[in-house]
């Protein structure tokens, strides 16, 4: 008896949605095994990892704090991914957004104007877009690979932020710690849910997801992006400019990541630190694909990813597991998603005998 992978006549629409669920389930199952092998009571570990972090309102607020940057970055990336523009540098664009938005707050230390926050967000968008514009320019003018350029710029952005907080922007009253001064109230995002730390970044993220849906599914430009991603030849045939798709794809990712960066700086942190994000920009790549590049899917996938972050922190504190466990789960999730996606185009069939023969002769030359 064999199990055979057989091509489907057409891709299974059900599997497109089942596959992420299957991947999530298999990731949890793997976690179960990992916990057991490490010598923990798997059920207790499971509870500590996946349930305890969100068994009260405060926990849900913490979840939202992480959902906002993840879904923002993933939505922006999804626009590019749909057009086969592979922006891997959302982490750097997020950092630049935080630098520009935070820089505005630092430049106006005494302002209590209600325009400061919108200004910071706008500055964050501009900063993220500017960082994404570099790979876009190099791609459209020199055909430089946007994957490499955007990825490497992430490290440049991180070092630039370090330079600022260790150097010119360091808080003179900060006892020499590498951090800027705390932002004033007018430069901090307001709390939207009492009793939690959840701030206005979450509603902004939801608005961007809604906007993303309208853009991708209802606008002609979004349609052009989808055509460019599905069939480059057809986009060329219809006269849709490829350069334009590259620019839109990268700028959307950069702008959304920039907002996420401002949300981090002007959120619970309230200042700039040498490291502003625990890898949201990279995790968002996984979120975008687990969410099938669709806004609703991205929201659900970013909740799962946020839970992995929270669970990782909880496991560190309560079980004494290393923080790398978060990365292990992220990687496992992507691994299982890519594997499950095979079932979109193939199906498993149980074969009872050796496959394929011209019955019934056995003679071969």
């Amino acid at each position, binding site marked *: 008896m064999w199990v055979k992978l*057989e*091509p*489907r*006549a*057409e891709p299974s629409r059900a599997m497109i949605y089942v596959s992420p669920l299957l991947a999530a389930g298999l990731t949890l199952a793997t976690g179960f095994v990992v916990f057991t092998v490490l010598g923990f009571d798997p059920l207790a570990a499971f509870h500590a990892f996946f349930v305890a972090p969100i068994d009260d309102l405060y926990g849900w607020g913490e979840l939202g704090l992480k959902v906002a940057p993840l879904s923002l970055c993933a939505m922006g990336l999804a626009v590019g991914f749909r057009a086969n523009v592979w922006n891997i540098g959302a982490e750097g664009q997020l950092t630049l957004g935080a630098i520009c938005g935070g820089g505005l707050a630092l430049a106006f230390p005494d302002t209590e104007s209600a325009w400061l926050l919108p200004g910071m967000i706008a500055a964050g968008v501009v900063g993220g877009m500017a960082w994404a514009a570099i790979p876009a320019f190099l791609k459209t003018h020199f055909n430089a690979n946007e994957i490499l350029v955007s990825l490497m710029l992430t490290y440049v952005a991180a070092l630039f932020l370090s330079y600022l907080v260790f150097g010119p922007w360091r808080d003179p009253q900060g006892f020499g710690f590498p951090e800027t001064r705390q932002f004033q109230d007018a430069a901090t995002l307001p709390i939207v849910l009492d009793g939690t730390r959840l701030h206005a970044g979450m509603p902004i993220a939801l608005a961007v997801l809604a906007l993303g849906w*309208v853009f991708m599914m*209802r*606008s*002609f*430009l979004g*349609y052009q992006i*989808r*055509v460019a991603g*599905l*069939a480059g*030849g*057809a986009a*060329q*045939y*219809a*006269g*849709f*400019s490829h350069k334009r798709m590259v620019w839109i794809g990268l700028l959307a990712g950069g702008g959304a990541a920039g907002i996420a960066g401002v949300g981090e700086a002007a959120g619970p942190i309230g200042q700039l630190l040498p490291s502003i994000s625990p890898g949201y920009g990279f995790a968002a790549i996984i979120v975008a694909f687990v969410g099938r590049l669709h806004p609703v899917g991205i929201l659900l996938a970013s909740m799962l990813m946020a839970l992995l972050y929270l669970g990782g922190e909880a496991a560190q504190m309560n079980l004494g597991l290393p923080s790398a466990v978060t990365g292990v789960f992220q990687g496992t999730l992507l691994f299982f998603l890519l594997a499950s996606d095979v079932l979109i185009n193939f199906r498993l069939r149980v074969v009872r005998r050796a496959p*394929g*023969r*011209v*019955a019934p*002769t*056995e*003679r*071969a*030359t």
Partner: protein
Amino acid sequence: MSPRPPAAATPRLALTGISKAYPTVVANDGIDLVVLPGEIHAVLGENGAGKSTLMKIIYGVTKADAGEIAWNGEPVRIDNPAQARRLGIGMVFQQFSLFETLTVAENIALAVEDSRDLDALARRIEEVSARYGIPLDPKQLVHSQSVGERQRVEIVRCLLQKPELVIMDEPTSVLAPQAVRKLFETLRLLAREGCSILYISHRLDEIKELCDSATILRGGKVTGTVDPRDESASSLARMMIGKALPVFAHGEADEGGEERLVVAGLTRKADTQFGTDLDDIHLSVRSGEIVGIAGISGNGQQELLAALSGERTSREASEIHFGGRQVGRLGAAARRDLGLVFVPEERLGRGAVANMSLADNALLTAHRLNMVRFGLIRFGEVRSFADRCVDRFNVICGGVEADAKSLSGGNLQKFIVGREFLQEPRIVVAAQPTWGVDVGAAAAIRQALIEMRGAGVAVLVISEDLDELFEICDRIAVIAKGRLSPAKRTSETSIEEIGLWMSGLFPEGPATPAEASGVG
């Protein structure tokens, strides 16, 4: 070659009850086929009738679900092409599998066993090519060869293995009429020596001329085994498509109106090493006329089409004019804004997006028809336009929400033609509009082209199908090695003359006298 038993003895190849099902379609359904030694046996059928699947089963590329194969009377199992070759089965594919950067001899060495010594192999190649009248230079690099020459490489490679059965898959689709004559002589010589030939085609006249017997397939089943010399073209067609060939009306030959599409001295280097450079191309298409461009594929058609559609822009705006306006530097979208529509040769991936619905595919180029407002798509408009395409061109599909890839080639082509023609164009450019399309759809598409002409549109058709061009065109030109011949009135030329021109032998001169003087 080894001595062979006399004809009428054991069949060289006998298939019994061969069946093969794919997830969506039964490609072969209980097929019986008998090929005698030294016989040229035609397998006739439309695209999708199951010819290619059957040949792949014989050549060991695919395995049948059921059925038996007997080779020289012995039941056999053919698991892979190497085994088929050891039995003595050779195949010349429609798509060539040659490395362009290698020489003829090197390419053949890759496929022929014990051929380490290239010089000895070159001598064997020369022997075989002399014996069967297939001129071939073993030292030539493949990328410098024409399509016809590449086919000769494939044929010689096949013959070097001393086959007893040669499968030829649509061999004449890439050949000029004169080259077809040559090929037929070679095949007859082979058959006289006792080698059997399975000749796959849908060209009735060729089969009547060449073949001793014919097995006709329709929808995966055998609908007849006949002697084609005793049949008429229409009786063969009836067996092949299940009904009589449709006929359609061509309007009066016309002088045409004003010049709509003018190409003036288009010269361009190819994008890739293996492309064709365009060399000083001059062409004019008037409103209300159909101009055809004949030629064997790979002679610059792709490059010319990309230059006309705007997918590749010119450096000089004056190289291409639309109705007096210089458009050489405008992109595809801007040229469409000026009234150009284009039916490309590749349907999926260029003319349509496989994984999008027909409605979404209508939007691809017809968005100019008021389908976008404030940057947002007006889905109602899109759907009603797609419905009109489906109705007007009788597209068989599961509604306009069906994915483009779920349609058969002919139906998708009708949809694309509908989408382009219903945009009320001023200029139509169509590449191989009926290639791989069933006979009924082909007639509908040709009729639509003629209606466009009647509506005063300038129509340019680039096709390898000479019969088609002679059927619908007012004037015909030939493209060969990146040069375009003068366009001749269809009534003043012949298939023989155009065939001769296809080898590159045509009178010099940028345009016909009629064009040069500016009157139609």
